[in-house]
């Protein structure tokens, strides 16, 4: 038994409507006979049969529209000797049904569309040029952000817009403040990511050494309280201002701790712009710079600190404040840890840390007396300075804090 199917008469013919049968059940048919008429978009077309035999059953009647390949009738192979002299067509030539398994299907993959030639950008000579997208470069300029230290997540390590936005929302130092105009969607996550990127890079590239020194703050705090008592509340100073001033003045004699590591060499900075860490209540940290902290009197530093903290929290820091730091100070204030062992913000050379001020038994002359002390720490780049120099710096810092009136 074989099947007579709706023939495909053209590549764009999907279906045909049976108009008329010229044969019926029981009729004999021969190869090449016109057995029906089918209506297509091109008009009515007579269709021929390629089997010889007897029509066993008509399955699709006039008026029915069926897709190409639908069985229209069943044909019984002729039992009697074949009427036509020519030898019976070998089975291979029989029109294999659409679903016949043996049908060789063209390879599944459509011929590959001309994939655009994979642009193999010639790698620029190693290291000479920063791979950064124009959009990212423009955004960095807007934020006054130094792009050197940023790890790129784009193709081939290229820096993308997202990298800049993340860096801007993250760590002090090269990272920009969260600009008021920052897109609302700056997720906490992207800030975390940017901080992580900067920290891991710092650890990877900067050979840190760490020193700390406990400093007796009694003299300094006493002076502070006495000074505040003489002043209206609005002009009171806080300890942070003293610490800031002391670090700045001390750094005058330590250029190897105040500057940048660029292209394999320490480059001392001409100014002392101290990045002061401000914790953002929603999490995250920024360290906007207080410019020329070593030349400004305490009053000015106090006003600058107050303004800075307010604007940092409100996201209103200026781009210059976010990229000018030559050193960074992390002061945890009254709450938190005793000591800070921080990570330098590349490409700076040092990070000064202050733990919380706390009362400790302290040897004063012959006696042991309770004294308020603070743990001062230094993380520094061993390529630019060494432990000896770091120690001298902490000693100078201590000495200055013992003479608060000179700050």
């Amino acid at each position, binding site marked *: 038994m074989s099947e007579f199917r709706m023939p495909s008469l053209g590549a764009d013919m999907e279906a045909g409507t049976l108009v008329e049968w010229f044969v019926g059940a029981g009729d004999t048919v021969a190869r090449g006979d016109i057995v029906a008429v089918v209506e297509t978009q091109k008009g009515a077309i007579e269709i021929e049969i390629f089997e010889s035999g007897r029509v066993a059953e008509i399955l699709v009647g006039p008026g029915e529209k069926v897709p190409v390949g639908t069985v229209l009738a069943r044909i019984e192979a002729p039992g009697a000797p074949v009427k036509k002299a020519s030898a019976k067509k070998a089975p291979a030539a029989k029109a294999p049904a659409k679903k016949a398994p043996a049908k060789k299907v063209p390879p599944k993959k459509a011929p590959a569309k001309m994939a655009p030639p994979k642009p*193999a*950008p*010639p790698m620029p000579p190693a290291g000479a040029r920063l791979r*950064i*997208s124009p959009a990212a470069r423009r955004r960095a300029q807007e934020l006054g952000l130094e792009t050197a230290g940023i790890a790129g997540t784009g193709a081939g390590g290229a820096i993308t817009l997202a990298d800049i936005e993340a860096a801007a929302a993250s760590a002090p130092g090269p990272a920009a403040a969260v600009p008021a105009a920052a897109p609302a969607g700056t997720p906490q996550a992207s800030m975390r990511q940017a901080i992580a990127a900067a920290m891991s890079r710092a650890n990877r590239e900067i050979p840190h050494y760490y020193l700390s020194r406990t400093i007796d703050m009694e003299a300094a705090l006493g002076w502070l309280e006495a000074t505040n008592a003489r002043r209206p509340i609005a002009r009171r100073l806080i300890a942070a201002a003293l610490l800031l001033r002391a670090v700045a003045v001390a750094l005058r004699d330590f250029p190897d701790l105040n500057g940048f590591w660029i292209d394999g060499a320490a480059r001392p900075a001409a100014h002392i712009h101290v990045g002061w860490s401000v914790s953002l209540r929603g999490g995250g940290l920024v360290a906007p710079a207080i410019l020329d902290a070593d030349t400004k009197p305490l009053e000015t530093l106090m006003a600058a600190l107050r303004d800075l903290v307010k604007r940092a929290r409100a996201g209103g820091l200026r781009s210059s404040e976010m990229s000018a730091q030559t050193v960074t100070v992390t002061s945890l204030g009254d709450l938190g840890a005793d000591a800070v062992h921080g990570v330098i913000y590349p490409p700076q050379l040092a990070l000064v840390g202050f733990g919380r001020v706390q009362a400790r038994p302290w040897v004063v002359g012959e006696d042991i007396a309770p004294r308020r002390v603070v743990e001062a720490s230094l993380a520094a780049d061993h390529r630019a300075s060494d432990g000896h120099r770091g120690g001298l710096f902490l000693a100078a810092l201590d000495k200055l804090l013992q003479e608060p009136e000179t700050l």
Partner: protein
Amino acid sequence: MTAKGKSAKAQMGAAKKGAARKIVARKGRTVRTTYREAVREAIRDALARDPRVFLMGEDVGRYGGCYAVSKGLLEEFGEDRVRDTPLSESGFVGAGIGAALGGMRPIVEVMTVNFSLLALDQIVNNAATIPHMSGGQFAVPLVIRMATGSGRQLAAQHSHSLEGWYAHIPGIKVLAPATLADARGMLWSALLDPNPVLIFEHVLLYNMEGDLAADAGPVPIEGAAVRREGTDISLVTYGGSLFKCLAAAEELAADGIAAEVIDLRCLRPLDEATILASVAKTHRALIVDEGWRSGGISAEIATRIVEGGFYDLDAPVARLCGAEVPIPYPRHLEEASVPQTADITAAARALVRPE
């Protein structure tokens, strides 16, 4: 025949006669010659070297060539190998393809790219397709030469720059010789190439005079050439615009801008490596092309630069192209229709020093 401006051709032929000058082969390194004479010498050299080479085209024989390029070749090589054809571009270009299929190495001259539109079917559906569609059984080692570009006030139908269209077609190569050395040297290499090669000769270059090595011979047909080194901007151009770009580079140099000039020489395949290496150095690219901007070859070159040199770019890729108009007859409008030296200088300066 009037549609093709028969009279215009007659006038041009007459003007050329006076200017013809035998090449004075002086002892010593170079010879003073013209672009036209260099092309003629290339054809003569090819005809002499290989009996399978023959020249076919309208008025290439008795008339001596519409731009007097083939003058004297009929007398030297005879009717069989320097064949004047009827005005049947599709017919004789198709015959050229058939002859190449048959084992010859024909040089078919289509007077100008404007008339080649009649032969596009033969070029695209036969020459460019048969090798691939025959499964590699047949090659079409044919050269088709055409004049291109504007500048002789011949108005729109005689002034097109359509080489960019042909550079779109896989299966053919497209050349644009600008220097005397390329005009002299590309033809023989093109004839040796088993593929159909189209050579576009800018009409304004025929009269260009210069010094050519006395023993100048075949040159490679692929690969761009850096005609002038520079570090601030890459001027990417070809054919008729090359010498305007070199002049512009001179002016820019006086203004402290070092412009690099890239002569593409070959529009298909495009020499991406040379273009991208230049842009990697200068970080700015200005493409100068007489063809129209929309969908022109300048658009293809710009895209290749953005695809391959994106991170090298300090400024958007710039294009200076022909105005999107049918080229008008009056001189002042014709000149305004294609990039001139001053335009190139201004565009380059704007890219290097944006206000």
